[in-house]
């Protein structure tokens, strides 16, 4: 039998949630989300590919056909950036409302609330992994050699992006419980960030004073490293390292924000 005491300003010790149960809950929730998402769709998984592929087509037309940019194998270039970006933006938009959409759970039961943004991240990571075969298909089509760097790159970069997103997601989701304005802000920032990340263009195309600034965008090293692994078959250690640095900063910040705000969730939602 366990004793727990609630003192003022001290968090309650949850003896019922061991680490194993915490992970079981995360897996169950992520599994549920994936299942729910496609349960009522006939085409299921294909829908998660439709959006980035449609964007790729439009951007290809705008950049290559209209503006005559000279990036080689531009569709492949786009698809790599867009799938990674899609994970980033889908997750953050979803994270804003993750606590609200599970409001009845939060109000009525006790469980570590952090499982909700974590499960959502796993779900979006799953969709990203499921999109990798499409990228490989594009590579096959453009005769890009399929090397082991792809596997190594994926194993290194998926965790980096996962934790980067989790950190940012913990922060924005917690803040959004108290300030609904947060989801508007995130929407605008994501819209701008898409064009300030090397999704549509390579970093080398950015002229002198601005290319330094682009480095402060946490998605820059990630997308560059993804392209390195897929297009040139190399592991860009500098970008990979920078990605992990950003992930660590985001995670520390996100955890800090979450821990400060989590106790008020049930009252506000």
């Amino acid at each position, binding site marked *: 039998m366990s004793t727990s005491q*609630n*003192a*003022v300003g001290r968090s309650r010790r949850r003896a019922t949630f061991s680490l194993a*149960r915490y992970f079981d*809950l995360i897996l169950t929730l992520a599994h*549920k989300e994936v299942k729910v998402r496609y349960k009522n769709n006939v085409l299921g998984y294909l829908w998660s590919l439709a959006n980035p592929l449609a964007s790729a087509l439009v951007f290809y037309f705008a950049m290559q056909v209209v503006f005559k940019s000279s990036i080689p194998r531009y569709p492949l270039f786009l698809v790599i950036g867009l799938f990674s970006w899609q994970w980033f933006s889908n997750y953050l938009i979803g994270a804003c409302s993750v606590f609200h959409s599970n409001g009845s759970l939060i109000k*009525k*039961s*006790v*469980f570590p609330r952090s499982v909700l943004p974590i499960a959502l991240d796993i779900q979006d990571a799953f969709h990203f992994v499921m999109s990798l075969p499409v990228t490989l298909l594009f590579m096959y089509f453009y005769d890009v050699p399929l090397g082991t760097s792809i596997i190594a790159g994926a194993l290194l970069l998926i965790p980096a992006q996962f934790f980067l997103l989790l950190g940012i997601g913990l922060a924005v989701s917690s803040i959004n419980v108290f300030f609904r304005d947060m989801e508007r802000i995130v929407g605008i920032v994501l819209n701008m960030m898409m064009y300030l990340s090397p999704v549509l263009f390579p970093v080398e195309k950015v002229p002198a004073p601005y290319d330094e600034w682009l480095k402060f965008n946490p998605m820059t090293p990630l997308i560059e490293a993804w392209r390195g692994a897929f297009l040139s078959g190399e592991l860009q250690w500098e970008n990979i390292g920078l990605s992990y640095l950003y992930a660590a900063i985001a995670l520390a910040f996100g955890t800090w924000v979450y821990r400060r705000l989590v106790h008020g969730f049930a009252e506000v939602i």
Partner: protein
Amino acid sequence: MRSSGVLRPTGQDTEPHLADISHRRAEALPVVIKFDNVSKGYVDRTFLAGGLKNYLLNGLAAGKYRRTHEVLKGISFEIRKGTTVGFVGRNGVGKSTLLSLIAGIMLPDSGLISVDGRVSSLLELGAGFHPDLSGRENIALFGAVLGFSRAEIRNRIDSIIAFSELEDHIEVPIRFYSSGMLARLGFSVVSQLDPEILLVDEVLAVGDFAFRKKCADVMNKFRASGGTVVLVSHVASDITGLCDQAFLIENHCIAASGDPQEVMARYQHSGS
């Protein structure tokens, strides 16, 4: 009005079926839930609705304007192991907040709460269920939210389904369930996952007669095995029939405590 309700031992049994558990009212039983001068207030809704605006207008000082609406004031009581305790009171006096505090969903603003044992709450049946998932999938989901491992749920899922008597509909998405069926499913999960303290918030009213009887049987069995039940209800028969002790909450404080019949009489009297 008393600002704190100290547990008053009740002498005689009025309900014959309670006779077998009357010995457990002895003072020697360990206290499993203890509230010591607990107060809880809610952040003013208008403050929150302002969102970012408040912080822009007031800067960091905006934090000072929080917590204006007191829901519970100086609540103290003790609940002993194996007893069934009922809380009555009009809507909005803080009964559900009290259960949330026991469950640990919320933290008190001041005072000390200690809870000894695994709490399962039936605060709202169907909370945590996803409408697009089948009954079976929802059992797994709800069980995980309640803190059970996947293996534990897998071992018990058959007995849960059997208890709910929903075998014919268990693979159907629960958006096709009636509210009574949802209540069955929720109660089945909670009751089959052996908690030590059960919190019940006016949910027993939804099931049909046969299922209500089944719920009452489960609660009696649960109590007989030493479980503690905390119940919020307006139904007089629930309070007088099931509870060993009742508390009346009025004006956010405990106004009366003790014998369920007396407390219920006072509640019905004050309501008129």
